[in-house]
């Protein structure tokens, strides 16, 4: 049963040849490059990968297994539309972390549509629910365009362990593949070995990382933006320490980071990404609200979708307006721990995967 997920497994450990990362962290007074671009270590051989949609689908299949009611079966068993069918649909949505409010909304809308369109069999009901979900999620699909500014400054934020640093590694790969130059700013000056972790991602991508432990995060990122501008770098990816919205002083700190970035470049940050762990339940709503209030989040990244968590909470998020008055788009999804395990969010593929199509 687990064989299906093989492709989602951990990338192989770094090859032994990897240059010693930052074994001796110098207490640099001024942020200094911690890595100089070096020949990339041979990319760890990775097993043939399924497309993300397939992997996502594999993950999503789990929701249905919880209930021992694969969606397909469900619709086959109930030829007619009845209350039992609605109840099972409700279970599917709830166990995917869609949340009570959004689930109620979807089922309510479904009932209306059944009436309006005089639907009679379960197959039609299924399509109708898919349509509804798609309508809800489509506005979240808004790919990130990093060509409209140079340097395009992206600031990443989120709760502890959500996947910020890993996402930066993946984004660096992506932007480089598009032919852009990238600079990483190690704005997590708090957590143990946070800089070293980012430095490894820098090495893997052969991009420079600036910043150091113990310095002020805002200062590190400020310097990175200035340096990127002076050197004509295309994209700056700024890491920040994980923080919980209840840690008021840390929320204040990240506000300051944003303000200081703006001082370095009045048009920046051009994108403020909030990284959400797909395992997160309804607290994701509180996270979005708090970070949006503090730093005006412009996009979301949903990580760890390669597990069995469905990230259904984005359906609940789609029903809430951010600071700009519209729901905050989901820019990317994370589907593994490797460099390539990042994909743009596509509503249709997400819904299809949820329904096992």
């Amino acid at each position, binding site marked *: 049963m*687990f*064989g299906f*997920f*093989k492709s*989602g*497994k*951990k*990338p192989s*450990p*770094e*090859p*032994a040849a*990897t240059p010693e*990362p*930052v074994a001796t962290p110098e207490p640099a007074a001024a942020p200094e490059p911690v890595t100089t671009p070096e020949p990339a270590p041979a990319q760890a051989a990775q097993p043939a990968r399924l497309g993300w949609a397939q992997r996502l689908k594999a*993950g999503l299949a*789990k929701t249905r297994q*919880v209930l021992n009611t694969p969606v397909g079966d469900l619709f086959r068993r109930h030829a007619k539309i009845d209350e039992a069918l609605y109840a099972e649909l409700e279970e599917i949505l*709830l*166990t*995917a*972390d869609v*949340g*009570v409010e959004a689930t109620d909304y979807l089922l309510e809308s479904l009932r209306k549509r059944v009436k309006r369109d005089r639907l009679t069999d379960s197959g039609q009901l299924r399509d109708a629910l898919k349509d509804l979900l798609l309508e809800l999620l489509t506005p979240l699909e808004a790919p990130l365009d990093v060509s409209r500014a140079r340097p395009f400054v992206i600031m990443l934020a989120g*709760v*502890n*362990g959500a*996947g910020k640093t890993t996402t930066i*590694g993946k984004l660096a790969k992506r932007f480089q593949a598009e032919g852009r130059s990238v600079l990483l700013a190690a704005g997590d000056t*708090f*957590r*143990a*070995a946070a800089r*070293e*972790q980012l430095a*490894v*991602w820098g090495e893997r991508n052969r991009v420079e990382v600036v910043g150091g432990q113990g310095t002020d995060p805002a200062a590190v990122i400020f310097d990175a933006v200035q340096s990127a501008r002076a050197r004509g770098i295309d994209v700056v990816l700024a890491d920040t320490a*994980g923080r*919980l*919205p*209840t*840690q*008021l002083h840390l929320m204040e700190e990240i506000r300051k980071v944003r303000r200081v970035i703006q001082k370095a470049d009045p048009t920046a940050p051009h994108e403020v990404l909030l990284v959400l*762990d797909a*395992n*997160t*339940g*309804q*607290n*994701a*709503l*509180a996270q979005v*609200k708090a970070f949006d209030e503090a730093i005006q989040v412009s996009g979301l990244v949903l990580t*760890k979708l*390669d*597990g*069995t*968590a469905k990230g259904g*909470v984005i359906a609940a998020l789609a029903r809430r307006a951010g600071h700009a008055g519209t729901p905050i788009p989901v820019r990317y999804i994370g589907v593994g*721990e490797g460099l390539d395990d990042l994909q743009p969010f596509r509503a249709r593929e997400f819904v299809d995967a949820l329904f096992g199509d």
Partner: protein
Amino acid sequence: MFDNLTQRLSRVVKNLRGQGRLTEDNIQEALREVRVALLEADVALPVVRDFLARVKEKALGQEVLQSLTPGQALIGVVHKELTALMGSAAVPLNFASQPPAVILMAGLQGSGKTTTCGKLARIIRSQGKKKILLVSCDVYRPAAIDQLKTVAAQAEAEFFPSSPDQKPEDIARAALDYARRHFFDVLIVDTAGRLHVDADMMREIQQLHAALKPVETLFVVDAMQGQDAVNTARAFNEALPLTGVVLTKLDGDARGGAALSVRFITGKPIKFVGVGEKLTGIEVFHPERMASRILGMGDVLSLIEEAHRAVDQQEALKAVEKLKKGKGFDLEDFKAQIQQMKKLGGLSSLMDKLPGAGQLGAADLAMGEKQMRRIEGIINAMTPQERRNPAILKASRKRRIAAGAGVTVQEVNRLLNQFEQAQKMMKSLGKGGLAKMMRGMKGMLPGMR
């Protein structure tokens, strides 16, 4: 953000009042509210279902019939059942083995394993176990080994070096061998985060377990986890003979329904909770507190802790200094206290954490906030001299202040009375000055007595 259960139930309970007993029928609505509350707290649906069945069974029984109001009894049953399900408090770590006692950490990516290794080392050291060794078998995550090394140094525990080109099992064996030969009391083994559906990685940790024969195999769970907690807990519990659970990031505002899901599925005790990023951020588990938190019934203790954290230290010091110098607590300080409350996220976010606050509707809260503003307004209308020495406030001054603040003289009088009470409170100021103050404030708000 969500209605808490107390709020939900107080609505339903009104309808139950006067009905001598709970019946299948009239309990239905209340149970629906409990269901929604649990789901919003991220308790997994299958667990919710089973839990409700238990509550129903209990509620329809004698316990309810004996009680005075059926509504109270129902809340009581829900809370009691939940607390019971949470298990017992403060289950200690097991060291009953030939030293070294091995502790193996397991869990999803980013759940807090590495940090918890350091926290445990610190706790164990404070319990008098001298020799503690930490080792990382995480050869995957960039700089994972460096991270543990730093954490070990912070915990003043010894660190056994490893490197990403080694096999995790080899690392484990070498560390165990070293710990034996050097008479360590405890060996704490960090592992990579893994998905329960990654068959290779689950096999790897089974092999680590077989090689290490740990006395403690701790499953580390993020308190923010949603519905999937049942699936991960089940898989880890089946793959490994878990001995306990550590629930991390409880310093956040997640309701933590995952705690119930994981308890329910594994039946293993929650031994510790993580309440901060620093190594001091760990506590023993309190089932009763956790039950209250999941139900949204308030947790005064966590409120107080939060208050301590957020209060401007300088302000607090200044106040203490002043008291020490024998100068009284004046209206200027009173105003500062109100401003501190605002800093804590305003009344509504504070009230969420106070038990019984659920009975307050949004309207009451708005009134409370309004009242706070009025109090501020009144104080603002005073001269600095009057604030420092309210005793000089005679009728004519009061009239002037009332006019300035746009309130009645009675309201000014009420404030002065309340202030006097607060002053008394501050006189008995021990350490938790603000906490007491909060409780005082609570008494001043409508409907909260």
